[in-house]
């Protein structure tokens, strides 16, 4: 594949040079600035002035004007021409003689007095490209001589030449280049490097100069380009090392030159152009009869036998664009990066970035997304260039316009995909992932809105799960643009989130309500109702709450009431006033109940009003269930249990008020009993339980409950009361025996046998009817007797123990008394810490001696004026 890197432009055409004289051929050329010299086979030098002309279309051409021509008088072809512009001389090789010619007049320079100006027997010469002498008015040349195996180094001055050095070579040299002290030579069978200063030599590689014409071309500081076997162009430096990979020419290559980054070579029919960057052949130009290819100060010129041409490099950018146009991304990038050193840094960066971006778009168009992404990233692409490919993604408010000239050839995604929906989809997926990656980087500084809005649109359209994440976190989606888009794709839940993000909670809730009510379809969120309730619950806007609570309560009071019950405690927003809420909930009975439960049971607010209200609601519920027929037993039970539990547990409600409310209700006896209990009207309570309800277990439970936080005497009193109630109703007291009476008797017996420990047995025995059998009360009596025995024995043991303790203490005391007590002047009193001065002391228990007055003092101070001490004699 080819690039157009160069254009061949005629410089001097046949007419101008030789007219119709067919036998005249060009032998050599030299160009120095605008001056072009041409040597011909008829021993003429022609001098032209070469002007660059750029047409209005930017096309370059040359106009040449002949200044002079001169016959050198040797009848032999002019073999070489080299300009030494500082000397205003042309160094000419003709007929094996090197001599000097004036650059302007073309007159041969005569020999000066001091030395010759001619070198004879020369086959070839070259100029030192990197002169070692500092003299600007002197040119160094290396000369190859026809007979001897030598190389000579000369200094060329304005009017003389001076031999500096002569070096022997192992074989006859046939081509030469010179850089500093380094001669690069083609010998008969090999190339070599020769240092004419040190004499050191370095073989490069073998080459048969007889078979193929060798090429020794200086290309760069201490670097040469050589024709190698197999038509290779080999690079070698002065150390004999190759630092660049070779290029492949044809076998018949005649001449070569470097015009970075290209190697230009000439063979019989073609000019070939290889890149030094990747070794590849980039361009081939056909060129007949070519025999000269030389570069002059960067300008590559060619000559056929009859005419002269300039090989004009196309501007680098143009070449790169050509490569890109043929989608040769890698090569374009290599070429760009290869030019880094030749372009000012800032200019290079701009170019490089642009090429990277273009490369990215080419790969994008080929769906090579990974590569494209890498190039976009490296090229710091404005993401909007990419977004703008996708119709309608950029928000209407975006100020973006595509860069000019365009980075790619695509009008939009549809154009790119040519109707292939799968392609479109892939591109969209790519953009989703790409935007997702870059949106949090500084690459999107200044266009966050565009990026986020585009991403939102793609998410919505592609039904992408990240849509909600995008909206729930910090984002810059443009509302005006996103609303219709989300509506279009029925993403109402997401739209609500967006409204919320833009502080339009009211709009959000309204929209969600429509979805929850089924007016709009969006299945994004299951449990949307609960979500709305949660949302209202945590909303700090009371207005919003009051406005939509009704809807929520109607839809489901149990959940709806969460708006009030689940509000985060405290926090920044002033909380709703419970009284307001209660008033508000007036018409929502069930919700009100739940709310009161929340206040009373969860938040444990100790307010009589609330407790009474809740109790009344419980009661009302029970009553309303009772009034229904048929009654739902299960529901009723549950309602009553609640009521009962509350009546038992709360101490704040107004008991009388509630009692009044159920006074006439014969079905709520248990509740009434509880209320009586609350009023400490235990007899009434027990009466109800025993006589009306005949619910003995409840009666017992009542006793336990009513005395639960009291002392045992209180409990005993209650149990005796219950026993009394049982016994009063039993036939033993003169009533007619019936079922009921017998049952009460049994209840009394059970009570005694089960709770015997609570009772005072003596009082019980007095209460019991005479006729009861002992057998019946055996458990009770057993326990009573055993308990009393136990108490008796326990107290006897206690007595005994106290007695023995007393004896033990007595014994200790006697023992202490007999012990000697040591008193000395060195020992201090334990109470005042002064020493003893007289033998009379008092001894504390344990034999501790103290002053008598100290003890007296202590006894006086102590509230119990016991005598602790005994006086003892000093021993």
């Amino acid at each position: 594949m080819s690039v157009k890197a160069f254009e061949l432009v005629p410089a001097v055409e046949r007419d101008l040079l030789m007219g119709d004289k067919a036998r005249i051929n060009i032998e050599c050329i030299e160009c120095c600035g605008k001056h072009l010299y041409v040597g011909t086979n008829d021993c003429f030098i022609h001098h032209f002035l070469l002007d660059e002309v750029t047409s209005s279309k930017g096309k370059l051409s040359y106009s040449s004007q002949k200044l002079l021509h001169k016959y050198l008088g040797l009848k032999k072809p002019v073999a070489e021409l080299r300009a030494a512009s500082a000397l205003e001389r042309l160094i000419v090789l003709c007929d094996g003689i090197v001599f000097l010619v004036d650059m302007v007049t073309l007159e041969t320079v005569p020999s000066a007095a001091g030395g010759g100006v001619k070198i004879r027997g020369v086959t070839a010469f070259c100029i030192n490209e990197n002169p070692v002498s500092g003299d600007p008015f002197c040119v160094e040349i290396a000369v190859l001589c026809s007979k001897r195996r030598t190389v000579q180094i000369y200094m060329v001055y304005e009017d003389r030449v001076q031999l500096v050095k002569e070096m022997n070579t192992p074989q006859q040299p046939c081509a030469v280049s010179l850089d500093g002290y380094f001669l690069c030579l083609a010998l008969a069978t090999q190339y070599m490097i020769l240092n004419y200063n040190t004499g050191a030599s370095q073989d490069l590689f073998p080459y048969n100069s007889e078979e193929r014409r060798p090429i020794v071309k200086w290309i760069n500081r201490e670097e040469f380009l050589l024709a190698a076997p197999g038509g290779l162009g080999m690079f070698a430096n002065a150390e004999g090392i190759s630092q660049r990979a070779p290029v492949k020419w044809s076998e018949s290559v005649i001449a070569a030159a470097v015009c970075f980054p290209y190697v230009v070579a000439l063979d019989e029919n073609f000019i070939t152009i290889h890149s030094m960057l990747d070794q590849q052949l980039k361009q081939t130009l056909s060129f007949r009869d070519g025999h000269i290819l030389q570069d002059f100060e960067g300008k590559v010129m060619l000559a056929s036998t009859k005419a002269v041409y300039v090989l004009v490099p196309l501007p680098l950018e143009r070449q790169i664009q050509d490569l890109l146009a043929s989608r040769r991304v890698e090569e374009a990038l290599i070429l760009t990066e290869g030019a880094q050193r030749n372009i000012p840094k800032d200019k290079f960066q701009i170019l490089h970035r642009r090429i990277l971006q273009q490369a990215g778009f080419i790969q994008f168009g080929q769906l090579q997304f990974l590569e494209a992404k890498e190039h976009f990233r490296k090229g710091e692409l404005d993401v909007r260039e990419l977004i703008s490919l996708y119709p309608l993604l950029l928000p209407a408010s975006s100020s973006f316009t595509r860069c000019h000239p365009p980075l790619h050839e695509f009008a939009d995604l549809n154009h790119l995909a040519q109707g292939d929906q799968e392609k479109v989809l892939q591109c969209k997926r790519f953009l989703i992932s790409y935007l997702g990656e870059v949106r949090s980087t500084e690459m999107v500084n200044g266009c966050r809105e565009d990026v986020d809005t585009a991403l939102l649109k793609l998410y919505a359209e592609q039904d992408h799960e990240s849509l909600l994440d995008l909206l729930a976190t910090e984002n810059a989606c443009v509302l005006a643009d996103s609303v219709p888009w989300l509506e279009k794709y029925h993403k109402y839940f997401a739209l609500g989130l967006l409204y919320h993000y833009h502080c339009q909670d009211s709009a959000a809730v309204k929209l969600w309500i429509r979805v929850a009510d089924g007016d709009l379809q969006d299945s994004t969120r299951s449990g949307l109702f609960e979500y709305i309730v949660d949302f209202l619950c945590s909303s700090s806007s009371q207005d919003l709450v009051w406005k939509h609570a009704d809807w929520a309560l109607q839809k489901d009071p149990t959940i709806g009431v969460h708006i009030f019950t689940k509000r985060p405690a405290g926090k920044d927003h002033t909380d709703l006033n419970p009284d307001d809420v209660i008033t508000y909930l007036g018409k929502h009975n069930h919700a009100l109940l739940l709310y009161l439960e929340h206040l009373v049971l969860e938040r444990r607010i100790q307010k009589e009003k609330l407790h009474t209200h809740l109790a009344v609601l419980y009661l009302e519920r029970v009553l309303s269930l009772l009034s229904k027929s048929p009654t739902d037993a299960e529901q009723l039970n549950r309602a009553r249990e609640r009521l009962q539990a509350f009546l038992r547990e709360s101490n704040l409600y107004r008991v009388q008020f509630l009692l009044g409310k159920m006074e006439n209700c014969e079905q709520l006896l248990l509740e009434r009993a509880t209320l009586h209990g609350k009023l400490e009207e235990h007899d009434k309570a027990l009466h109800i339980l025993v006589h009306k309800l005949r619910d003995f277990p409840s009666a017992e439970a009542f006793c336990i409950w009513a005395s639960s936080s009291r002392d045992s005497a209180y409990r005993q009193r209650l149990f005796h009361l219950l026993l009394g109630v049982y016994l009063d109703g039993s036939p033993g007291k003169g009533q007619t025996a019936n079922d009921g009476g017998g049952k009460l008797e049994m209840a009394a017996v059970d009570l005694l046998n089960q709770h015997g420990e609570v009772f005072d047995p003596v009082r019980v025995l007095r209460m019991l009817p005479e006729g009861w059998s002992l057998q019946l009360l055996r458990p009770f009596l057993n326990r009573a007797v055993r308990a009393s025995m136990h108490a008796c024995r326990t107290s006897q043991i206690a007595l005994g123990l106290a007695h023995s303790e007393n004896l033990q203490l007595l014994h200790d005391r006697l023992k202490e008394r007999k012990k000697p007590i040591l008193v000395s002047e060195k020992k201090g009193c334990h109470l005042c810490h002064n020493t003893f001065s007289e033998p009379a002391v008092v001894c504390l228990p344990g034999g501790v001696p103290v002053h008598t007055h100290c003890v007296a003092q202590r006894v006086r101070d102590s509230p119990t004026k016991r005598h602790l001490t005994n006086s003892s004699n000093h021993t």
Partner: protein
Amino acid sequence: MPDLSKMKKPDVKVVLLGDMNVGKTSLLHRYMERKFKDTISTVGGAFFLKQWGPYNISIWDTAGREQFHGLGSMYCRGAAAVILTYDVTNWQSLAELEERFLSLTDTANHDCIYALVGNKADLTDPRAQLPPEAAGLPEDQTEEERTEPRVPSACPTPPASPTSPSGALLHKQVAGEDAAALYGRILRYKGLDEKGSLPAEKMCFETSAKTGYNVDALFETLFDLVLPSILRKRHENQESPTVDLEDFRGVGTKRARSTCC
């Protein structure tokens, strides 16, 4: 004059030598690009730059063709490591190394290291047919096989087992010990003491560019071994200033080659 030397100056050079078709280019591709692709016959030579830590290593692929033979010495000049490559299914390719290629290494650094690489192991060895990760888990005996060259008569190419992925294996013409023996002769040719040099077990590899078998191990072993050479070179460069073409910060720090009036 444009500056031609845009390339990073390599710190060290590694050269692949060997007869044509043994798989030098393929080995280099496998290592650099992690794939095995069709190669076209290498023209003259080519090279890759490999970033190895802070160092740049240039790896030269040479052309095995007789035509380009003369260039070999030049490629080897200043090399820190030479990879002598043969084809395990081709006895002649090993012989060529000794006959034609060994002499090319005369221009390499005096402390150049040599690796002997038998490529296309996938054709003879079932282990090398697996991707490198899988082949890395040897059975009990394989470890031994790798370090101690097999006696060819006692144990020729193992018969293709039913579990072998590709069934038919080619005859292995070059046994590990043949390579080890050649390695010994290389050391002798270089006038190196066998004891003071890297052992054959370490420097003889069998690889497959096709499956990647042992390829990373080969290059990475070499890079680790040439590191001292890099350091020495850096050191030398600091000692004797030369004109660094890469150095465009100006000549202030370095002595100019020619003085100017």
